[in-house]
């Protein structure tokens, strides 16, 4: 299939970016979206033009590195996939595809379609863990955890930290990402010890970094490649309120 690509090009964080149009020809419908971009880049190298930069790594939908805002949707038109698992059969011959980077103040553009998502790391560093040090922990079966709670925790924990939730949200809110981590630990006994501290620290960091507020449009859930549920956001709200109201600890 032949396609027209309208791609955001931006030299670096300071430069002013803009769209550039490219034609790609003979794309296999079985190839992935990133493989299609590989084909484009090979052709650009042939013409001694600078290839389009985009983030990618595992190309099997789990590392969370790939991004891309494709035709108005993070990770493109297919549901529950990352861009690397989006296949060209979801497009038609002759289509024009607009490709933009994630846009959010806390995700500044590095180059072209590559953005800096270290804000997510900072939020996790604020408290997205149990403080267990290596060694000296009890036997794994010493604490029983209901399958239901464990499954819910796993649902939340499957977040890949790609940032599609922020990209999709009209408010550039990171609530789905943050709540997924808060939920995972709130649901498990191992996480309960620090739950008040954790939720307050992570929310404070999220606010400080300039992410928007959640207005419950649920765009995040719809675009999440791992289908993380917004019920996690409700759980985080609950945890947060509980901690604010009941905990005497200053964090």
């Amino acid at each position, binding site marked *: 299939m032949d396609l027209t690509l309208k791609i955001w090009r931006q030299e*670096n964080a300071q430069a002013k970016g803009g769209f550039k149009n490219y034609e790609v020809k003979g*794309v*296999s419908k*079985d*190839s*992935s979206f990133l*493989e*299609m971009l*590989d*084909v484009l880049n*090979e052709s650009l*190298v*042939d013409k*001694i033009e*600078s*290839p389009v*930069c985009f983030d990618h*790594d*595992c*190309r*099997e*939908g*789990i*590392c*969370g590195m790939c991004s891309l805002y494709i035709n108005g949707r993070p990770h493109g038109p297919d549901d*529950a*996939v990352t861009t690397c*698992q989006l*296949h060209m*059969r979801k497009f038609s011959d002759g289509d024009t595809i607009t490709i933009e980077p994630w846009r959010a103040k806390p995700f500044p553009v*590095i*180059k072209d379609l590559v953005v*800096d*998502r*270290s804000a997510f*790391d900072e939020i*996790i*560093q*604020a*408290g*997205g*863990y149990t403080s*267990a*040090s*290596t060694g000296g*922990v*009890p*036997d*794994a*079966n010493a604490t029983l*955890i*209901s399958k239901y709670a*464990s499954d819910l*925790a*796993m649902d939340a*924990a*499957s977040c*890949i930290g790609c940032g599609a939730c922020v990209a999709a949200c009209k408010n550039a809110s990171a609530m789905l990402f943050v709540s997924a981590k808060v939920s995972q630990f709130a649901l*498990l006994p*191992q996480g309960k010890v620090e739950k008040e501290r954790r939720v307050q620290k992570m929310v404070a960091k999220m606010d400080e970094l300039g992410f928007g507020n959640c207005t419950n449009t649920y765009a995040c859930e719809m675009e999440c490649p791992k289908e993380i549920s917004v019920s996690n956001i409700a759980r985080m709200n609950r945890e947060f309120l509980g901690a604010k109201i009941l905990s005497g600890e200053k964090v």
Partner: protein
Amino acid sequence: MTKLNSKIPQGPVAEKWSNYKAHQNLVNPSNKRKIDIIVVGTGLAGGAAAASFGELGFNVKNFCIQDSPRRAHSIAAQGGINAAKNYPGDGDSIYRLFYDTIKGGDYRAREANVYRLAEVSNDIIDQCVAQGVPFAREYSGYLDNRSFGGAQVSRTFYARGQTGQQLLLGAYGALSKEINKGSVKMYNRHEMLDLVVVDGKARGIITRNIVTGQIERHSAHAVVIATGGYGNVFFLSTNAMSSNGGAAIRSWKRGAFFGNPAFVQIHPTCIPVHGDFQSKLTLMSESLRNDGRIWVPRKKEDAEAIRAGKMSPKDLKEEDRDYYLERRYPAFGNLVPRDVASRAAKERCDAGFGVGTGLAVYLDFAAAIKRLGADVIKARYGNLFQMYEKIVDENPYETPMMIYPAIHYTMGGTWVDYELQTTVPGLFAGGEANFSDHGANRLGASALMQGLSDGYFVLPYTIQNYLAAEIGTGPIPTNTPAFDEAEKAVKDRIAKLLNIKGSKSPDYFHKKLGLIMWDNVGMARTKEGLELALAEIPKLREAFYKDLRVTGSNEEFNPELEKALRIADFFDMGELMAYDALHREESCGGHFREEFQTPEGEALRNDADYMYVAAWEFKGDGQKPVLHKEELKYEAIEVKTRNYK
């Protein structure tokens, strides 16, 4: 003759690790903060090691090539992690896990290391649960286990089909905690381009900041490389795009011997190749073999009809199907180890029974769905089925999946002793980057175990035995001739690549190299093929340095330059693999030499001549590397022919 000292502690195998820990040197808490450690890589081994070093009180600098430590390719491991907990009470023990791992590795792993691995496996599960890793559980609230290839017990802990992700996020959490505390300084989007050796000791690294192109010097009292495997030398593999052999090759060129480079694992259950533009292969967890049955048509004409699209696999009657693994290996059936399953698939396809493009076999769930119901299968493998459907556009609940072997894991790696120290003092290697635990073939669910074992429970001890002598050293300056030389070498390499200004992209050469490797140093190797590879690779390298085109400059975000640098190292890696494969005149594990097989086509091992680790020493560019042998002695185990029949 050999310079190798594996430093295996005295005593019976079961007591070696305890003895070692009881007598090793430690660094006291007030001295730890005077010591700097560089950790390259943030996967299970690197991330866990960096976090644990930080917890102990060392100053850690941790480097990762991706934009976040959480992206390391350990994340892609699906199936599970082994441990000798024996929770199901089915007869497992530390000894049995040790035995299975040694046997699975075709008796080419170091006994003492593997025993230690099995010993700490239980601690790993405890640690991960404490970190909040949501392992699968039973309704009772206890942890669930499943079985995996190469074992007759259920010892694999798992978190759906995303075990690697969950374990990595556990380690990433621990690492984040230490970053927050200030004990670990994180360097994202940094690539190690050289090792700095001062007076014979590893004292630092040279990195390139991937965003700005800046070449930076970092010093420390010890360097740990945990940079994973070199499977991407084949271009198409299940590795992530940025997985590379750079740190290993650079360490090799600075004096670290390389162990068993030929031992590469071909994973049997990958999604088959679809076309020329394919950039990577996607693995389907080996756990699928628990319930899926592998088959090809029994008659060639049926295979041809299926390939031509004239027939659907569903139309084929039971008696016309050849469940070749169940036929050849009745005791283990579809759960034979990976190398065995891969070779069997290749054998069927080469004989003309392949489906799809001809290079694929069926993995069929019809029987399991009938027996257990689609719901149970969905609960077990739902995400894998979904992934398959997204890629192949076929519903695996209805049509059998197609799979084919692909390059997956490299058992070989930088040679390390019992302490995981390389032949360069102060340079350590952990996880897939070292060679030690899997011999010639790795069993499923053992890579996660090994990465975390090295990171959480081995390196934090053994590195202290080395660092105890460094407490008086003081900070390592970076303005020394060794750093000057290393930085200049890196800058020269970059300038050389940028100045070729030829006409072919880095990927062009990478694909060519991959093809040479797959055809000659892949699943089935011959003397002629390997010699051909050793003749072709230098030619391709020459063409690369003549006709490479790298667009852009060093001083920017430049993925083309990154690729070119990595491919330059892959040439060396490819040659090293071919040298090793050529010299090892036997078939064992992932290394299959067609000249050495039984009449039934099984691997023919030669214990009399090859029961050793091949450790290769770098002798200069364009020179043949020199072989050193570490003889393997098995005291706790009887060496047998592997038999899965």
